[in-house]
């Protein structure tokens, strides 16, 4: 008798849970990124920005397709490609059609391959890969496929902007390149060498080095080498704890030139750099935060602050991702047929609240947008990061950066 009661209770409970999930949000987006471990802060902040963007830009405006709402579901991949593939399968099994990921191009490479394979084998439940931050150029070149869309500028586009800035500064004669030892770090180094030799052949690359990702406790030996090399500027693609550790160590050990970076803001990094990073840290990124480019951007940021007082918007491309997806679903008239949605996304021109346009190139699914060189400072900052007095301010803007950059992508379309 007891057993039957228990069985009944369990099945009733599972029915309730099942029903609850069936009535929840209509369009789910799987967010596969590190939510634990050394890069947890980067992943969690990305998830918050996604959840907020979905809520503010879509759900509060009445949803898409006459009332369907967005829901972002977090999946912890522990920054491991293997774990990501398991999480991808879990997400697909839950009926999720939109996958987003950004931290680590190593993971993105594994995901894009797996998704391509899955979509070929299962034409009935295909998924789209919305890459919001993995910037290995190969993803929109040799390894491109129809299902992958990149909303961030790739490493080459960003490096083009960085090297423009370096080339115009005649004081810089010696450059040190350092990065994490995986596909992205190697892509940064290759792009830096290529662009520098084209734009300023007189600049000498005095060091070009990779270090293990997420495993270095103390960056002092690396910064010693940088100082000893006599470099005038440093280029690094580091992110997360590796960015802060490297940056702090370089500055504390006596380097006083500019450090050109991709990801040295937010997630506690800005506050931790504080006064030390002023005048040294330069960032290349797509969205302009300070001064606020539009009134909508300021309102968006304030609403975000109201919800996450300790949070930052350090990846404005996330709101572009959500906005463009919503627009594509609306235009396609369906959220279930991802092929139609993908055709709408390709070639889309989108008015970003962060100023300027975002254009999704049809031939390689690479977003083309305005790129900014920003500096870490406490002067002229409207929206600070990490609850500190510091933030990033735009120094230079490159409109529709690398619009005509070549691609080796040969896309097969269904």
């Amino acid at each position, binding site marked *: 008798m007891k057993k039957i009661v228990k069985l009944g209770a369990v099945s009733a409970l599972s029915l309730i849970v099942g029903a609850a999930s069936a009535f929840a949000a209509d369009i789910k987006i799987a967010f596969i990124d590190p939510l634990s*471990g*050394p*890069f*947890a*802060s980067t992943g*969690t*902040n990305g998830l918050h920005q996604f959840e907020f963007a979905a809520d503010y830009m879509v759900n509060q405006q009445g949803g898409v397709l006459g009332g369907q709402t967005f829901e972002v579901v977090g999946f912890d991949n522990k920054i491991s490609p293997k774990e990501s593939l398991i999480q991808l399968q879990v997400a697909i099994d839950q009926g999720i059609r939109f996958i987003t990921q950004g931290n680590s191009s190593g993971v993105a490479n594994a995901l894009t391959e797996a998704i391509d394979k899955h979509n070929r084998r299962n034409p009935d439940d295909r998924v789209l890969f919305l890459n919001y931050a993995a910037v290995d150029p190969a993803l929109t070149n040799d390894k491109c496929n129809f299902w992958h869309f990149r909303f961030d500028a790739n490493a080459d586009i960003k490096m083009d902007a960085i090297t423009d800035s370096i080339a115009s500064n005649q004081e810089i004669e010696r450059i040190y390149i350092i990065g994490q*030892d995986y596909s992205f770090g190697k892509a940064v180094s290759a792009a830096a060498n290529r662009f520098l030799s084209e734009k300023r052949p007189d600049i000498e690359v005095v060091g070009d*080095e*990779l*270090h*293990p990702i*997420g*495993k*270095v*406790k*103390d960056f*002092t*030996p*690396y910064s*010693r*080498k940088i*100082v*000893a090399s006599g470099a005038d500027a440093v280029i690094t693609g580091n992110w997360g*704890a590796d960015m*802060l*550790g490297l940056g*702090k*160590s370089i500055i*504390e*050990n*006596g380097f006083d030139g500019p450090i050109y970076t991709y990801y040295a803001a937010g*997630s*506690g*990094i800005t*506050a*931790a750099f*504080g006064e*030390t990073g002023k005048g040294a840290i330069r960032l290349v990124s797509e969205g302009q935060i300070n001064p606020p480019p539009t009134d909508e951007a300021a309102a968006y940021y304030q609403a975000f602050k109201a919800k996450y007082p*300790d949070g930052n918007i350090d990846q404005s491309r996330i709101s572009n991702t959500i906005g463009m997806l919503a627009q594509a679903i609306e235009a396609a008239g369906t959220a279930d047929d991802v092929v139609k949605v993908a055709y709408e996304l390709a070639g889309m021109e989108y008015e970003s609240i962060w100023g300027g346009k975002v254009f999704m190139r049809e031939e390689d699914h690479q977003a083309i947008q305005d790129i900014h060189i920003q500096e870490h400072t406490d002067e002229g900052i409207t929206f600070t990061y*990490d609850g*500190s007095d510091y933030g990033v301010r735009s120094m230079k803007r490159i409109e529709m950066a690398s619009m005509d950059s070549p691609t080796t992508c040969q896309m097969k379309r269904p």
Partner: protein
Amino acid sequence: MELILVNLIDGLVTGLLLFMLSAGLTLIFSMMGVLNFAHASFYMLGAYFAYQISIALGFWMGLLIAPLIVGIMGAGVERYGLRRVHQYGHVPELIFTFGLALLIEELVQFIWGKNQMPYSVPDVLNFTAFAIAGNSIPAYKIFMIFISIAIFIGLLYILTRTRVGMIIQAALSYPRTVEALGHNVPLIFMGVFGVGTALAGVAGVIAGPVLGTFPGMAFVLGSIVFVTIVIGGLGSLWGALVASLLIGWITTFAKSYNIAMSDILNGIGIPSPADLDTSAFRDLWTVTSPQIADILPYILMVMILIFRPQGLFGKRQS
């Protein structure tokens, strides 16, 4: 030449920091025969507590109070956790400390979140002490060296020159006899555990501003601490010191100089393969010392375990 001196100092700082962690761990091991997996978590707690206290009362009060709190917590863990689990044998003890490590990491994330904490070097020490050929040595590093050496000397003095130290050493080897002589052995165990974790706390307090205060900090340092005490010999304070310094210098020098494997192999008379891209040993030939610097201590540990299983200074043959 100057760079060698700079690297010696940098390696010393890394080594001494590692020593403060491994000293406590090795004492606890020799006493209870159990590896405390949560040791690095106490290091992390030290950094977070010190950060929280430094906001209100400044860095120096943090340095004073945070290790005390960590030590009291450690003693509490021994008294109310480990002592109860002890009767079931070593495996449950191991699992207990392992679970504790996970629990502390989650707890830290729950309270402080997953971001980096802006815990920074105090202004008094935020200047360049001196420079060697353009390489500045921050005053904070000198401060770290002095704190660690002071702690080592203090610990050595207490253990070898005082009555308390004698009782501790006796309790380590012959707990039953010491108990029969009327000493409270469980209290000694609790005290040693508390002091050991407090040492980890001190390490956290002074390492937090330079190595970063974030929830992954225990994970990054966790395994290397065990390697240190295995190399030094389980239970040996001198062994912990020598092994820490050895690891500090090995990793620092390996990262500072780009020694390529191809140079070494060529040096001992093996010519490079004609076509590197298609060679089966391509990865071996292209490896450089900074890439493998962080696994060198593990290679050293394997060597030690093969040729001298009791470690450099270990006495026990278990």
